[in-house]
């Protein structure tokens, strides 16, 4: 009984983790950016979605759309206002660009968090579930919304896989992650590829934010934790490796769920963090990482 409960709950939370982390690892793989404002972007999607669904009266579907759009716009803002100016700045030495991007996005994330708290207060909010009600799975009472979230996550991840592996733009993104210079020599415009990858990232982070708001609820205080969990999943899976992130999301999701059910809910994040430390020691490139 508890085993089945762990299986179901772990699956839903892992799928959500995977969705949130895939975009994060994608922009690292393609453009070398570690975006520490990730949690902030999810937060914007969740809070704006909640606000649009309720206060603007757009309902749950309208709110979801507006939330995803807000996530996408914030991702663009992050890229054009924070990341790109740092990358292009002649005042920042080449070898320090990544550190500056890291610091810039970290501060940007804090600005988003504080700004959202000023606008919406730090009370957590929840989106109304897309589907209400519960379903009984062999005696485990499961909210339908939880199952739907898992399905949506996998559909989106599947679409992303198709996009990357089966389309021309996807292949050029893949090529950019392997050899950006070669790609420019072939006449591809790198900045267009970066724009595309940030578009995908923004959409994924937006969907993840809105789904999280309808699953567990989101408050401004969660921003740091959301970034940290995406970051540790991506490091665990191997920076830049999409399949590694998927695997790591499930390892972390299930490890947390098992801990919460069998040990103590308070200890929930600890074993995953210990595993992360171990991986950094024994296999610094991550589970499926190449570099």
């Amino acid at each position, binding site marked *: 009984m*508890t085993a089945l*409960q762990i299986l179901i*709950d772990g699956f839903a*939370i892992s799928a959500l983790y995977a969705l949130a982390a895939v975009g994060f690892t994608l922009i690292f793989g393609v453009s070398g950016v570690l975006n520490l404002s990730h949690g902030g972007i999810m937060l914007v999607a969740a809070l704006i979605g909640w606000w649009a669904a*309720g206060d603007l009266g757009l309902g749950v579907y309208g709110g979801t759309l507006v939330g995803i759009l807000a996530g996408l716009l914030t991702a663009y803002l992050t890229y054009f206002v924070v990341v790109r100016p740092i990358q292009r700045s*002649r*005042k920042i*030495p080449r*070898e*320090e660009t990544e550190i500056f991007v890291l610091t810039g996005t970290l501060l940007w994330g804090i600005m988003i968090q*504080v700004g959202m*708290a*000023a606008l919406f*207060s*730090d*009370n*957590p*909010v*929840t*989106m*109304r*579930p897309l589907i209400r009600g*519960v379903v009984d799975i062999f005696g485990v*009472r499961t*909210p339908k*919304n*939880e199952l739907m979230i898992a399905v949506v996550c996998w559909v989106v991840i599947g679409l992303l896989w198709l996009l990357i592996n089966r389309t021309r733009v996807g292949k050029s993104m893949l090529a950019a992650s392997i050899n950006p210079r070669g790609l420019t020599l072939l006449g591809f415009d790198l900045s267009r590829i970066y724009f595309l990858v940030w578009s995908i990232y923004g959409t994924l982070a937006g969907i993840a934010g809105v789904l999280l708001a309808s699953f*567990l*609820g989101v*408050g*401004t205080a*969660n921003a740091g*934790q959301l970034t940290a969990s995406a970051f540790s999943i991506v490091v665990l899976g191997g920076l830049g490796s999409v399949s590694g992130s998927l695997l790591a999301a499930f390892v972390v999701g299930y490890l947390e*769920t098992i801990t*919460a*059910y069998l040990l103590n*809910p*308070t200890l*929930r994040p600890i074993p995953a963090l210990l595993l992360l430390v171990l991986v950094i020691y024994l296999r610094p490139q991550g589970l499926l990482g190449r570099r």
Partner: protein
Amino acid sequence: MINSKQTPARLARWLVPRAVALAAALSLTSAAAIPAAEPIKIGVIGEESSVAGASITKAAQMAADDINAHGGVNGRQVEIIAYDDHSSSSDAVRAFQRAVTEDKVSAVIASYISEVALAIEPWSARMHMPFITPGAASTDISKHVHDDYAQYKYTFHGWLTSAFIAQSICDFEHDTIVKDLHAKTTVVMSEDAAWTTPLDAQYLECLPKAGLKVLDHIRFNPDTTDFTPIFNKIEGEHPDVITTGISHVGVQPTVQWHDQRVPIAMAGQSSQATTSTFWKDTNGDAEGIITASAAAPGVAITPGTIPFTDAYVKRFGSSPAYDGYTTYDDVHIIADAIKRAGSTDPDKMVTELEKTDYVGTVGKVQFYGQGDQYTHALKYGPGLVTGVDIQWQNGKQVTIWPRDKANGKITFPAAIKSPH
């Protein structure tokens, strides 16, 4: 080509003169800001981004405006100087120091967070600055005053201590859930924080006396976002009711409780549920949730409750959180003490604050004396302050306890199977 080693030096060359200029400008403005005719200044430290913390500064300003509209205190106006501590103890201590040394306030009202109030308390002692917390609950606040009165006597506890909150909830559960609904068992579910340690200790003592056997006592990290495992465990123990002690969390456990159709009622202290925005934050999943609070909209605990609530809603668009009521009272209590003392001398103010007998918005306010266990804490009991218990019903907070103040009956949505 820019050499990376030059960057800090260049930054310093850019930054230092500007920082000096800025500091000079700031010191000039603060020097110029000291007025000739001195109003009575009260420092108010709130948490602007949390619903409960924002009620503190808003209610304080309303109280000052009311006092000033009635001629002020001994002919002097009351001026509120508000600070935001961002829910951080160190920010709160800095704000407190600034209030005392720079802004020359005569008293400070601060915070609904016990950790913050406990951090300010020693500074109130060192700086001999009368200090009231309108919303913190830890029993340690008044224990310090009791244990070292000469040092700590400047601190007053303007809200019920955790022990009395627990007692009030036990009294409520005894009167309604046990007597009327025949509940026999409960599980205590509290967040791990300074205010819940004494709360839980009192729960474990008074719940059995109220007729509820405590089957389990669960404390969880306030960072928890997924409550499924906790509810799962509780459901497996089949209690008749869940007794909560939550303040840092509230929306998330409530929504998950509803979405997972946990069939057991939740009552106790759920501070976020005391605010009027809770219904919207939870999309109505709050239906059936019961929480203790200072007061509730539309319920005349005293003749002052409804006029204050209405004026607050008119001015700010939402009803005050529990500490909005107490802050409003505390500003009046401080003003009255200064009036009676005829001065803002801290020791004279403390003597007068101890004599407080004030009918405010939450009841009749008196503080326990030097010989009592909870020195300078709000007195609890019928005829004084008991708090109320409210239940969310169809988007409204309905008062269900105490009986003489109730404007509705306890009722649960269909998904709640227990208590019957």
